[in-house]
């Protein structure tokens, strides 16, 4: 689906990270963990083709991503930014329709098929009732779900989500993570970043640990989200406590204060 090979990334001449190699398979969820300033967002932008790679290669379904037109990239990879306040008071339905841009010719406006796709995406996320609401007037959690719906409206095969649980309350975090799992079950690959290592257990098949722009670990959550690596990543002691009755090795992560 998506493969990074010895990727170096950064802005212009400023190198943020290097030597990143990983593969995302269809329907697989990869969780990216790392401290602030560790290069997660820059890596995402490079993965999306928004920044040119400084070295190495990004292979998207067998083709070099840098040689693909924007529309072709966007048809396959959809980006879910952090829930933001838009500048103009668009309706939720209009926002979700924008996810169809990669499916439409430059001069085209969305038609019946695009409206249907937008409605499907809204229904899939259980937010059909928000369709006529104003995007700038709904809550942060609802906005995050709308942005996921927008990404899904384009019928992508891979979703890149930049800290989808940031600034959400406890319930909305759980709802978003549940959606990530449902996407995986539908065969859509997901790459997401989060600040809560415990989230990796809830939704990820693979965890990539990004430290100082390099991969400090890559593998299933049970092998990568352990006290040693978390100490390296965040510089604090972390207790990883298995949940009672966990089937997939789910565990809680809590900092241990000195």
């Amino acid at each position, binding site marked *: 689906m998506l493969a990074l090979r010895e990727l170096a990334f950064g802005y212009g001449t400023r190198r943020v990270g290097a030597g990143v190699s990983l593969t995302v398979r269809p329907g697989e969820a990869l969780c990216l963990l790392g401290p602030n300033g560790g290069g997660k967002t820059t890596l995402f932008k490079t993965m999306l083709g928004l920044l040119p790679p400084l070295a190495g290669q990004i292979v998207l379904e067998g083709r070099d991503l840098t040689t693909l037109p924007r529309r072709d990239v*966007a048809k396959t990879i959809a*980006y879910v930014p952090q829930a933001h306040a838009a500048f103009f008071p668009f309706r939720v339905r209009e926002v979700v329709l924008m996810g169809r841009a990669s499916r439409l010719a430059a001069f085209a406006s969305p038609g019946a098929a695009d409206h249907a796709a937008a409605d499907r995406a809204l229904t899939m996320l259980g937010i059909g009732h928000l369709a006529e609401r104003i995007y700038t007037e709904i809550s942060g959690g609802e906005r995050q779900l709308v942005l996921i719906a927008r990404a899904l409206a384009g019928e992508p095969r891979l979703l890149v989500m930049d800290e989808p649980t940031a600034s959400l309350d406890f319930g909305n975090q759980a709802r978003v993570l549940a959606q990530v799992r449902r996407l995986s079950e539908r065969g859509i690959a997901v790459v997401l970043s989060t600040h809560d290592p415990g989230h990796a257990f809830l939704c990820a098949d693979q965890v990539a640990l990004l430290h100082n722009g390099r991969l400090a670990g890559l593998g299933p959550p049970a092998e990568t989200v352990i006290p040693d690596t978390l100490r390296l990543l965040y510089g604090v002691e972390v207790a990883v406590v298995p949940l009672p009755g966990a089937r997939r090795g789910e565990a809680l992560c809590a900092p241990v204060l000195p």
Partner: protein
Amino acid sequence: MSEAASTAVAPGGTRRRLAGLSLATLPVLALLLLVVVSLGTGRYPVPLADVFSLLLAKALGLSTAVDATAQTVVLQVRLPRVLGALVVGAGLAAAGATYQGLFRNPLVSPDILGVSAGASLGAVLGIVLTLPAAAIQGLAFAGGLAAVSAVYAVGIAVRRRGASDPVLTLVLAGVAVGALLGAGIALLKVMADPYNQLPAITFWLLGSLASVNPGDLGAILPAMLIGLVPLVLLRWRVNLMSLGDEEARALGVETRVIRPVLVAAATLVTAAAVSVTGVIGWVGLIVPHVARLLVGPDFRRLLPASLLLGAGYLTAVDLLARTVATIEVPLGILTALVGAPFFLWLLATAKRGWA
């Protein structure tokens, strides 16, 4: 299941389109009425019925019983001016709506990239060199386009050196180039003949439709239409551009192609408009804003709404300009005098002007 889905979706499109059409009828009729009132009002009043029959006769190529003086006043004197107000108002408002979408800011006017400043410098130069009117207009048009090109070139050069936000870079470059052009205008004003040229310069900078003739309209219409075509074709993409460069690109929009096309189109429209009327502020700022309050931010509805409202607003303000006092009040003064308080009232009362 599929049948249910299709009935739920398919009629929505046509019904929405029909509803849109019928919604547009009323404003169009109101605009026509305003045009007729405007043609009949002035130092030499012509009854509305006569204006109607004159226009109808002219359109159908019939003869009319309306007296010759009234014919001259309505068709030769007032019609070019009213048409000018319609075209310039519509153009400035459409350009303003586009710029506001592109720059993700409801407080942006078409002047942000220096088109008015450039046109002003061109016109002032023409006045100081005592060139004929057509040459002054040509210089103004060229000056507007040159200023925006310079801003865009600076923006691209700065971006090559690693600036990350292309929109902010453009705005800042626009501010700097605008300041330079302002210095040039001030210098020319100091050098101008204070008895003939300086008043002409002052009037140009305040804007007026008084001298618009059919030839001017013929000269600016092609540029305006050429500018409007991309705006109409790319109307849905303007929505995406208002998400910002990165998000629009992530959604599959070639912003590096679409942004310059939209800027060029909106600039062409603005430069053509101000080249015959002089600087007319506020229309490009306030009209899209009001249009957005009426029809929402979707550019597919915002563009036609801005065109209609802009045409109506400038026609109404120009009617005021030539009737409110014994001397003509420059348009720039009235658009601000009417526009600014209205804008403040909107700011104070509007529930959702912007987020």
